[in-house]
């Protein structure tokens, strides 16, 4: 989106001068893009359209009666659905906690592994380990580590006199969200660090040299050179992470099952469609999730546009 904004004036100029050759090239480009676009249409737009259509029906999974069109009935029910409303709060809280921690920690790690020191290559590979473990596996591993009866975290806490008694981190509702967020931060910070590292590496080194000659302090250089030039990478990282966090399912499902006070939006959708077999209403929930995620994307891109000017 930033790219189209930036290149818009140039394109207008180019269009005036467009020659036969350019037109031919444009046509060729479209021709070569067509298969990819068809695939995208098939795997993205078709299911999306199908879901929107289903959200206006009473379709049941494995029903023996025919499906009926019910208009806005599913959406009217959705507005009064406390479980779904609560899941929005849980999911948004989780998103805000994890994305902010992942961004700050990821930036620090990226800056560290971007500086030159011995063993940097090894460090860059090692930091990716948490990201490489499948989420369901690491979630189960952490669930057991958190356990107050046989988990090492409480055991160490009690032995070192940090905790007076073992704490049920996951079961208690006041620590549950923080416990699950910590695992997500542990797992996904490397991913943010990797994206930011890529951004850092394209910043020309001579900018820092010039700033150094002009007497700018390291901190000054960070605020005036690193951060502004890193902005595209930061936005990519934030958008990726926010969308992922808003769709979170696996960690919560392993930790809490279908516990009612910790359901995320995706868990509500999954339970409605698969467990209850209520495809129509589940589709309405899915559309709502799609719109909520859409709101976040709009916020980010607007933020980007303001910054560009």
């Amino acid at each position: 989106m930033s790219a189209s904004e930036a290149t818009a004036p140039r394109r207008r100029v180019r269009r005036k001068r467009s020659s036969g050759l350019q037109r031919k090239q444009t046509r060729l480009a479209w021709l070569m893009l067509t298969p990819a676009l068809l695939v995208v249409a098939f795997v993205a737009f078709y299911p999306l359209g199908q879901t929107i259509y289903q959200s206006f029906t009473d379709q049941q999974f494995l029903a023996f009666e025919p499906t009926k069109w019910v208009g806005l009935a599913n959406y009217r029910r959705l507005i009064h659905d406390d479980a779904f409303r609560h899941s929005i709060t849980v999911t948004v809280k989780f998103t805000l906690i994890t994305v902010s921690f992942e961004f700050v920690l990821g930036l620090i790690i990226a800056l560290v592994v971007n500086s030159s020191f011995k063993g940097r290559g090894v460090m860059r590979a090692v930091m990716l380990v948490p990201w490489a473990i499948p989420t369901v596996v690491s979630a189960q591993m952490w669930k057991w580590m958190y356990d107050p009866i046989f988990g090492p975290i409480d055991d160490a806490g009690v032995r070192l006199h940090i905790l007076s008694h073992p704490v049920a981190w996951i079961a208690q509702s006041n620590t549950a969200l923080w416990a699950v967020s910590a695992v997500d931060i542990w797992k996904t910070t490397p991913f943010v660090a990797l994206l930011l590292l890529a951004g850092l590496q394209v910043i020309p080194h001579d900018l820092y040299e010039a700033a150094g000659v002009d007497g700018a302090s390291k901190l000054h250089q960070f605020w005036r050179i690193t951060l502004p030039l890193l902005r595209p990478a930061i936005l990519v990282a934030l958008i990726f992470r926010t969308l992922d966090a808003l769709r979170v399912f696996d960690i919560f499902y392993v930790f809490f099952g279908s516990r009612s006070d910790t359901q995320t939006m995706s868990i509500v959708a999954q339970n409605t469609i698969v467990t209850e077999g209520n495809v129509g209403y589940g589709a309405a929930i899915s559309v709502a999730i799609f719109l909520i995620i859409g709101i976040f994307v709009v916020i980010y891109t607007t933020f980007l546009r303001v910054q560009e000017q």
Partner: protein
Amino acid sequence: MGLTGALALVVSLAIAGAGSAGTAEPSTPAAVKPPPVAGAAAIKAKYGGQSITFVGDGAVGNSHVRDQNLVAQFSKQTGIKIKLVPHPADSSAAYSQLARNFSAHSSSIDVMMMDVVWPGAFAPYLVNLKPALGQQAKLHAAGIVLNDTVKGKLVAMPWFGDFGILYYRTDLLKKYGYSKPPTSWAQLGAMAKKIQDGEKASNPSFVGYVYQGNAYEGLTCDSLEWLASSGGGQFIDNGKVTINNPKAAAILNLQRSWVGNIVPSAVTTYQEEDARNAFDSGNAAFMRNWPYAYSASQTTPVKGKFAVTVLPHTGKSPSVGTVGGWQLGVSKYSKHVGAATEFVRWMTSPAVERYDAIFNANVPTIPAVATIPAVVKANPYLIPSIAKVTRVTRPARYLGPHYAQGSQDIYQGINQILNGKSAQSVLPTIASELNKLVKP
């Protein structure tokens, strides 16, 4: 670990079997052979040459070999050809495979294996086996037969199925002066408290009692045992939603009062393996679990320090165990109902259940088979009281295709109770949700 443990068990059983070679009863998987088919000649005369398809257990492991052996034996003796098709390993995939087949009125499946919570949903598509197999059904545990009887029709036959039992630490009971495991819930509470108070001094992680309290299917099973063993009904009885009653509320409030005291508050996140980890690490005095934990726990620090018994009860109500297991049914769209029924008759006979219990360590649904010495040797937890315990089943036959949703209403509600809400405030909500799902 699990595999080596299983191997060790198999080897030790093989040695035990060899040691007692004088006795005629083979009790090892290798020694036991599929039994002969009773009345094979008559079946052959009537149905010989027909072909049927049997959707059996998953494609991996001993269960599939068991199916292959049994199918080969039956075909050889009766001349009925059987195409054996393993079902998908994932239970919900197996469910939808059958559902698709039934809604297409397809004759491509004749006999199928069904989870204990499916007959309610599939009843309209299944043959009533009562005329042919009603007599034989009387041999099986009454609770499971009731589960497989939908609107007066016996739509499936029990095949094998385990149920919840109580694990306890024999060394700790002795240490604190108890000669017997608890028989009532109140006793369990008192014993768990005394043991926990004593052990906590040296081990701050120690707890009295663990079970499956996560908001998932396992909690429906556990809470059914609490209610049914305390006069609180079975969620839905005779088609009426009964979950909201004073005795149910009393036992649920008792269980809630234990959480954070003799039961760790983490129990509200526990599934089977979490509970087993707590027990196997030596940090719990009592555990409710399925029989699989008996052999699984033999390779852990509590090996030799624990035993099993039936779950506790309240007052005059019996001890119970919630059944998880499998049934056999015959499709209404089958072109060979007669041959298929004969196959089910043999498969659910005492002889085949005995073979399966030894060959594959499955719990027989026929209590008399569960007490055969060779079967007990292969399944050492099958002490007489456990083999005879009353088996209860989840309310699937009343909820039909809505079972999963009804069960979700139950386990989410009970999980809220364990997390601190009073039973009186949650049970009416569960009851009204269930009422919406129960078909008259």
